[in-house]
């Protein structure tokens, strides 16, 4: 168990590493890249035998602190933990030496299949106990505490016996895992399920929160889909401001996975987060 592991150091403001930006990041003229404090990599993109992906990663690792973010741990699945996956993850971790590793509070498949999606879990005692046991197993295997992110959800279950924020808080309390608070995902789920996103944020255990994600989404009127293909919307910026008030300095990054703009444009969003954080925390000091 990693109940009392030390909270990782604050990294500042970063971006999700995307291949489209390699040239700007590693070019001779630092340009926009100079403002970036750290990068988050998608672990699976580098869980390959070798070649250019790992070659580029090694170069970026020389210049920036990195954190690893996975999408296939499937911590909520009732299928057995995929030990092959964990071994590959550990191998990458040894190479990257990330400041921390994260994945999602979700499941991705059962019966040996992978849906390649972050599927919702019911907020039940059974799911909580099941997931807490698996988080502990993973943390024991890796020898370190992992961070888990709240996923955007589009459905909830009749069997839900608690709120999402109660479920997430309890997971952290039982396992000592850290939390990656995705501000956009909280907003998306609050819109889809009709809860107050600030209530969610206020319920998060401050000591456990190590990272914020900010991203854009697609609003279909009756529901919002977490598409990461647009800039961050005003409502999410507003919620981010509230999060900064509540949690203080938390390593923050912009996630963009589709319609990926030039690096300088994503850096503008990242700098907006930095300025907001500075203004809010400066005013509170």
């Amino acid at each position, binding site marked *: 168990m990693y109940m009392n592991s030390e909270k990782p150091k604050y990294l500042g403001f970063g971006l999700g590493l995307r291949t489209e930006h390699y040239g700007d990041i590693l070019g001779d003229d630092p340009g926009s890249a100079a403002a970036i404090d750290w990068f988050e990599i998608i672990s699976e993109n580098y869980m390959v035998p070798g070649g250019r992906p790992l070659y*580029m990663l090694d170069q970026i690792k020389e210049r920036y602190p990195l954190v690893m973010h996975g999408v296939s741990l499937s911590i909520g699945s009732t299928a057995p933990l995929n030990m092959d996956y964990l071994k590959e993850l550990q191998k990458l971790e040894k190479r990257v030496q990330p400041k921390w590793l994260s994945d999602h509070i979700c499941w991705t498949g059962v019966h040996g299949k992978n849906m390649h999606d972050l599927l919702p879990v019911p907020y039940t005692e059974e799911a909580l106990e099941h997931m807490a046991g698996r988080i502990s197993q993973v943390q024991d295997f890796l020898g370190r505490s992992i961070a888990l992110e709240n996923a955007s959800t589009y459905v909830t279950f009749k069997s839900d016996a608690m709120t999402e924020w109660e479920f997430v808080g309890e997971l952290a309390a039982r396992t000592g895992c850290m939390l990656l608070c995705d501000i956009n995902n909280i907003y998306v789920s609050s819109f889809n399920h009709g809860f107050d996103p600030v209530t969610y944020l206020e319920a998060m255990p401050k000591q456990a929160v190590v990272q914020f994600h900010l991203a854009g989404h697609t609003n279909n009127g009756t529901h919002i889909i977490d598409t990461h293909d647009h800039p961050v919307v005003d409502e999410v910026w507003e919620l981010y401001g509230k999060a900064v008030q509540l949690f203080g300095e938390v390593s923050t990054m912009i996630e963009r996975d589709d319609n990926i703009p030039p690096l300088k444009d994503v850096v503008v969003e990242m700098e907006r987060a930095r300025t907001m954080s500075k203004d809010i925390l400066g005013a509170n000091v």
Partner: protein
Amino acid sequence: MKLADLQDMFQRGLMSGDQEGAGQPAILDEVNTSDKEQKDVLFGVYQNAYVLRLIEFLQGDYDLLETYLGDEGFDEMARAYIAVHPSTSHNARWFGTGLPDFLKNTAPWSGLPQLAELAAFDKALLDSFDAADALHFTPEDMAGVTDFPGLVLHSHPACFRLDLKTNAAAIREALQEEHEPPALEMLEEPQKWLFYRSADMQSMYRQLGYEEAMVWDEMVKGVNFAGLCEILAHYSNEEEAPMQAAGYLQNWMAADLLMKA
């Protein structure tokens, strides 16, 4: 309901989204109603994402095949592939690896043999791109060789060979250059292609002559230098065979195609 049963039901619902006449997924009975939207629409977000994401993986890996088949044709083919090859890997990178075989063995696509070969060409480029790293066999290594006849050479892990029976390479080239692709042509002799990775980590390919391909293939099987010379001697002058073999070796070494043992 037990968590395992709920996940089983949820996954069945996801995978039935593309099946005609599948009806309402049973999981909807376990899902809360929403004030704003029908729950089948909300569950449909997951259903649509499942298929579209997998199609996107295939589009990323086989973009020229998509150009060749057109959006509709590619979509139909991809959905058929997804139906029989649901992803079993934790990494999207490996989802499409079965596509060349699928196209070769599944009607109606098997009736167009250039499709499987176009896919195999792209798969070889992908496989070369992120194949394992290994030290190259260099002139310094060569200088240290004391037993030339017994020298066994090793292909770098990023090297792959492909024989094409159709003009898929010409079709591919036309697609790349945004020209009208030529009609299918069955070749009298298969074309021999070698895929490899350049020093700056890019996937490359070149066509081999019959003789070079034969020597390469024998080298990959573990035949030593003397054995390669013997094989060459059958096809050309016996006295020139060692020089020819040495020439191939030099070229392969210069192109980083060989791995240090």
